[in-house]
């Protein structure tokens, strides 16, 4: 069953950017694409313990700030070394200017 958690306002995220969100001690990363759709993933990079919130969003790619590992934040797919494990993604919905994440 879906567990929708209120994460932030839609305008809190700039276009082509990422912000952090924490729930139950678990970090998430929330993205807004250049086309203004929203996505969410785990907050930690899958390579080492680095938070993706400080990374660079380019199109649909988030680049990790530590070793420049890249993921497609829509699918979580790792895009080559040093990423060997994909990133977990979470459904996002936008209601009345607020973003919700299904953290289940």
């Amino acid at each position: 069953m879906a567990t929708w958690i209120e994460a932030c306002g839609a305008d809190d995220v700039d276009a082509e950017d990422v912000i952090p969100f924490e729930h139950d001690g678990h970090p998430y990363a929330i993205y807004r694409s250049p086309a203004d759709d929203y996505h969410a993933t785990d907050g930690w990079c899958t390579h080492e313990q680095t938070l993706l919130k400080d990374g660079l969003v380019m199109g649909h790619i988030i680049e990790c700030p530590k070793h420049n590992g890249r993921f497609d934040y829509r699918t979580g797919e790792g895009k080559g070394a040093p990423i060997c494990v994909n990133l977990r993604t979470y459904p996002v919905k936008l209601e009345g200017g607020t973003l919700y994440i299904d953290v289940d």
Partner: protein
Amino acid sequence: MAVVRDYSLLGPDGKRAIESGLAAAQWYRTSVPRKRMKELMQRRDGPAIRDTAIWLALLAAFGGTGAYVWPSWWALPLFGAYGVLYGSASDSRWHECGHGTAFRTRWMNTAVYNLACFMIMRDPTVWRWSHTRHHTDTIIVGRDPEIISMRPPKLFHIAANFLGLFDVPTAFRHMAVHAVGRLTAEEASFVPETEWFRVYRTARAWLVIYTATIAICVATASVLPAMLIGLPRMYGAWHHLVTGLTQHSGLADDVVDHRLNTRTVSMNPISRFVYWNMNYHVEHHMFPMVPFHALPRLHDEIKGDLPAPSPSILAAFGEFVPVMLRQRTHPEAFIERDLSSWAAAGDTGGANPSAVSAATTMDVS
């Protein structure tokens, strides 16, 4: 009593670093507003395309005219320049393109990365992973595979590598090992098994190229083909050693603050071009996402929180060479930077070079 350091990646110091939390630790980073950092991280193709075009054009010009006047003495300066562009500029191109920051366009990074790896004789896969570890565990003994200046330093080894005398035979030995489908035990400790096939494939391709080069040398009874492919990694290696030694030599090991173990150096424009701005080395380690062309701006942004740069390559050597000489008998000796002195300067929002130099002392306890 002197503490004996074991720099092998499979030895007790590496294990100790993991147990003590030194490995994969959280490192200090100067605070930069997200908006500004996003500007600094932006990727562009323009600067790297311009520099790569100049680089390749100069290689063609010096290599071509050098070959044309070969074997007259006129070839000497021409191959001198060709060698540095081949055996040293490839080091920084390997580095920047390996981070994926040089170009905005992915395939351009990959293409220049592979070319530079061939020139500098570093397997693209092994060295990508080795450099990843260097960034995770910078100058952590037993963890960082890219420490040039150990304690005590291997001075003969370092000096010989100004002509690639250790690096090149090692590169060929590894190529042979890889070509028969193996990695060294150390390489296997940081390269995931899923990547090993790439290493074997590259080694086989490179060996074909080098064998063909040697065959042409034999067939033409001339060393000229090897002067163009392979040998410049030796006679042109000196510049990348000069700049590479400035990065961490003489500074602390086993710390988790790049301001303590890394050096930024002001350099002449030619060395900056060859080295692709990696003289801003503290800045690069703190923020590896910032491309080479934005490092001067990053430096201006955070210099108040960093030690003052060495004013020149010569000044940097003047700082660390005496320490390295001392480390032969006193491995504990290192250049100790006192964080408190310039953290205060950073708090006031401006660099205070004199405070930093005053705080830079040689610890020989």
